[in-house]
């Protein structure tokens, strides 16, 4: 069930250049079904900025009924959000969307998790759940440059982890796909989240393989009512074949959605 709640900010820290980790406590936590779902956060009580900001759930702590998000403070809204202090409240709507099906990978199988930039966060909770299930997990994480890298240690604790930076200032130089090719990494199940070009590159390589991609789209409502976030489906005939990223996604089987 979707709730709107003034959640308590338990912790809020800057973990890399412009990257913040915020832990939120409240009833929404109970409603979270799985990794890859997101919340819609109002960054100001006023009228500017007006729209909520969609942010993925990066990890969940049901005992403390809190979850963590990791976001980049770049524009107007996220910068405002980053000024909030522990014990302040945040107006959160969620949980929203359908996340990554952890069950798609069976115990003993190998899952490849590929994340780019602010696409990395949702993979963390996914990796934890896959580990619990006994799935072997490999991570390939791509960032712009060293100062933007986050959570590389946390991921390393969960499985083999490769970091790639565009300028080579951390890990190997290049894109995540370069790493995957060089190391020719094997897997049974693929999970990925990141910028469209990265997802496209993965789709080309692994079309037909078992995999799930998490998409981004500019959103209005976040709950399926405004038709802001639609994409054509690959099989789509005009006017019929479309999905809404906010409610049908943001996670889709590889090849299902036309990546524009």
């Amino acid at each position, binding site marked *: 069930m979707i709730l709107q709640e003034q959640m308590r900010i338990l912790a809020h820290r800057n973990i890399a250049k412009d990257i913040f980790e915020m832990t939120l406590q409240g009833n929404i936590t109970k409603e979270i079904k799985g990794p890859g779902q997101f919340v819609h956060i109002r960054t100001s009580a006023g009228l500017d*900025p007006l729209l909520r900001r969609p942010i993925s759930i990066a990890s969940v702590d049901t005992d403390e009924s809190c979850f963590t998000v990791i976001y980049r403070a770049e524009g*107007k809204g996220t910068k405002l959000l980053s000024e909030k202090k522990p014990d302040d409240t945040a107006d959160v709507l969620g949980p929203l969307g359908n996340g990554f099906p952890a069950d798609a990978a069976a115990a003993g199988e190998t899952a490849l998790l590929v994340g780019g930039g602010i696409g990395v966060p949702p993979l963390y909770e996914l990796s934890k759940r896959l580990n619990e299930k006994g799935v072997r997990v490999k991570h390939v994480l791509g960032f712009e440059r060293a100062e933007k890298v986050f959570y590389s240690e946390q991921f390393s604790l969960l499985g083999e982890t490769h970091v790639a930076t565009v300028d080579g200032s951390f890990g190997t130089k290049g894109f995540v796909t370069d790493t995957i090719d060089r190391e020719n990494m094997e897997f049974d199940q693929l999970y990925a989240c990141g910028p469209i070009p990265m997802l496209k590159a993965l789709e080309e390589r692994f079309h037909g393989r078992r995999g799930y991609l998490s998409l981004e789209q*500019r959103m*209005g409502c976040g709950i*399926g009512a*405004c038709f802001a976030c*639609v994409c054509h489906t690959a099989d789509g005939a005009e006017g019929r074949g479309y999905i809404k990223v906010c409610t049908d996604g943001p996670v889709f089987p590889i090849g299902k959605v036309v990546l524009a």
Partner: protein
Amino acid sequence: MKCLSVKLPGLDLKNPVMPASGCFGFGKEFAGLYDLSQLGAIMIKATTLEPRFGNPTPRVAETAAGMLNAIGLQNPGLEQVLAEELPWLEKFDVPIIANVAGTETEDYAEVAERISKAPNVKALELNISCPNVKKGGITFGTVPEIAAELTKRVKEVSTVPVYVKLSPNISDIVGMAKAVEQAGADGITMINTLLGMRIDIKTGKPILANRSGGLSGPAVKPVAIRMIYEVSQQVNIPIIGMGGIESADDIIEYFYAGASAVAVGTMNFTDPFICPKLIEQLPSKLDELGAAHISELTGRSWKKYEPNTNHCS
């Protein structure tokens, strides 16, 4: 709450608050959040004869105290709206206002005729003003003669009262309102969105794939209030007002300006529970104002008014 009930052509409203077209889909999503029977009415997403996918994305962009949208009238088409969306809404005790769109007079007419026969559709909202599809549309909304034509035609075929939705992208809003009134409109809804654009500094290109879009939200409220203030004094049909409503005070302001009911659009995105919240707040607002019934407030701001159209900062 008897103090909130409002009677308009075809519409018997528990209260004067309804979601605006395109900001509420066909109700399904919000039905998961609260009981839709609380609403005064529901203005459903524009329906066209054929299904439409609409415009490429991005379709929305944020602006100061507002947003731009260029959805492009995406909707499943008349058949599915009649077969699925409207029947599904019958379980709620709430009148539906069907927003009708098209590209030529005849598809407006066909949609109007058939959708007006749906049992829970109590009125039509003729969308002659949406600024976001490639053919037709906006011209209907900016040329009084053409708007009147279309209104006449739709009135001939509709079995329920017809409200015409006016575009603010026009110099003489009163002339447009009078034209559709003379053509037989039973009411007016206003305003639709203002044409606007935002350009992405990083790419140097418009943020919206459609380039321009419709501006909505609190930023446009003063434009809507002024137009309703002028139009409501020049026509004898009721006005459902909309544009940036985000508080009970805003609703009062719309009534003072001349509205007989209001619709909430963009703010449903910022606060999906806003409609029931505002409905709940209204009675105490009326007490504060010493009003026994909300309809008393309609047009209260007019007294001692000499038309104000030809004036220059």
